[in-house]
């Protein structure tokens, strides 16, 4: 190599390790390296190229376990390889790789009859992120009851509290991951699910909500006051009843998702 600077060497090496199957490794690199033990130069470089694909595929598989379950091994590995070649990792943390996998599935549509896959991937990415979020200390039931007497209050929710909605039954599908796919009856993908995700005792819980509950909680999560949230949800769900509202408040209390309550200013 002789005249190659360290920077030039690293660029050449990196390009060779990321290269696609039909591309030849950089001749200058192949000719100048000394392969280990009984490897050829080509094979020595392949050790690094294979390792790159394996590591990134494993990272995707760890995050998108349910997408893998639905796609099956062969298709998932094919998809992962295509994704990795189109989307090199720019993160220092391998477990953060694959943020745009859902968009990739949306665009690629590898299974035209499985339109729910992008939503399933979005759910899994959200789940992974919630796993790494801190767990708040919920306000006590007594505080909630006392504050609700004060009228137009605002709720602050814990950082791990998130909503997820899909026209597909992503949560039901996600729960099947890890089971033997052949033994499962074909799930009905086309059932809408409205979900509340939150953490308690360092574990993530998922609770299915009715659309009206979801709407009200969504409004509260955006920071609207209770009155504003109710008005907003009533405009979309005029049939919303007092028992439904009470039911949601019971959920909010029992799940411990409220971190703080602000009284009327």
């Amino acid at each position, binding site marked *: *190599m*002789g005249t*190659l*600077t*360290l*920077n030039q*060497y*690293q*660029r050449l*090496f*990196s390009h060779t*390790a*990321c290269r696609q199957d039909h591309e030849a490794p950089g001749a200058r690199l192949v000719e*100048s*390296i*000394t*392969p*280990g*033990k*009984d*490897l050829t*130069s080509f*094979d*020595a*470089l392949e*050790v*690094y190229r294979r*390792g*790159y694909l394996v*590591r*990134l595929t494993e990272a995707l598989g760890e995050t998108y376990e349910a997408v893998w379950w639905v796609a099956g091994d062969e298709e998932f590995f094919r998809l992962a390889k295509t994704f990795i070649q189109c989307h*090199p*990792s*720019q*993160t*220092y*943390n*391998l*477990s*953060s790789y694959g943020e745009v996998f859902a968009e990739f599935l949306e665009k690629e549509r590898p299974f035209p009859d499985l339109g729910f896959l992008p939503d399933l991937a979005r759910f899994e990415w959200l789940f992974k992120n919630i*796993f*790494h*979020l*801190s*767990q708040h200390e919920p306000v006590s039931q007594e505080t909630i009851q006392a504050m609700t007497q004060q009228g137009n209050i605002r709720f602050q929710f814990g950082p791990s509290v998130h909503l997820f909605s899909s026209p597909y039954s992503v949560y039901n599908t996600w729960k099947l991951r890890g089971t033997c796919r052949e033994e499962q009856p074909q799930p009905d993908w086309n059932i809408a699910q409205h979900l509340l995700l939150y*953490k308690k005792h*360092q574990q993530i819980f998922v609770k299915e909500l009715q659309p009206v509950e979801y709407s009200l909680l969504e409004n509260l999560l955006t920071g609207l006051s209770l009155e504003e949230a109710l008005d907003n949800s009533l405009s979309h769900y005029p049939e919303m009843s007092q028992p439904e509202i009470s039911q949601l408040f019971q959920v909010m209390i029992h799940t411990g998702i409220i971190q703080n309550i602000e009284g009327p200013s």
Partner: protein
Amino acid sequence: MNDSYTEAHVLSQPKVGLGLRPIHYPHLETRPNTSVYWFEAISENYMDTEGRPLHMLQLIREDYPVALHGVSLSIASTEGLRPEYVKQLKRLKDRIEPWIVSDHLCWTGLQASNLHDLLPFPYTDEALTLLLKHIDQVQNALGCHILLENVSTYLQPPGSSYAEWEFLTTLAKQSGCKLLLDVNNLYVNAINHRFDPVVFLQAIPTELIGQIHLAGYTDMGTYLFDTHSKPAYPEVWELFSKLIARAPDIPVLIEWDDDIPEFSVLEKEAQKATQIWNYHHGHTHTESVSASIFAHSL
């Protein structure tokens, strides 16, 4: 410079630790009595989380010294250090107060296409100058000395003007960092690149070594592959024995990253290291140590 490593250094007892791995969280959460002196955590697994991994690390830290061992510093990268990485590492270091902070003597890819691997670079003056600058930056940012680990490689880049052990020694002497000497990696490279591992071992002054790693490789036929998926081989134990005979105070770690067995299996590996330490430095020599651990004589 605050050096927590030196502060926590207790003389003349074997200091054998294990890698903290998520598969053992359920066991360790019960806070069992273990024969482990300390734990090593992969920095990246705890840098960007406020969830269970951090909670577990803090729990472990209550009972044990902890080392933070990174895989993504990419200190030999010509693109420089990632400021956000160093910032997050400093934040974790301040939270955990580790007795050792370490990473690898390598680069991991380009920032636009990170290979997430421990990649070889030529041992040149250019690389030495770059590394001295980066080590200084990291040590200043963290406020402590770091350790850098020798990595396994499957090819030798062109242009090296130093042997690996010469480069390591020169770097440690000039930078003030210490070496994390991975005996398995040393052996893997000795076979892959056809040099005598004992020459390597004897060339490194023990005062430059801040920690030892022990692990297992996989023989791929045409090369040895650093997989950390097996117990250390007899040849590696033998090199370790030669090293620990000269340097009794260096902390030792059993590394196992793939096909990770039950915690008790790792404890037995740690006990092997302790046995060898006792053979050289203990009050009671264990006569059967060579027969039980090495395939070859000490």
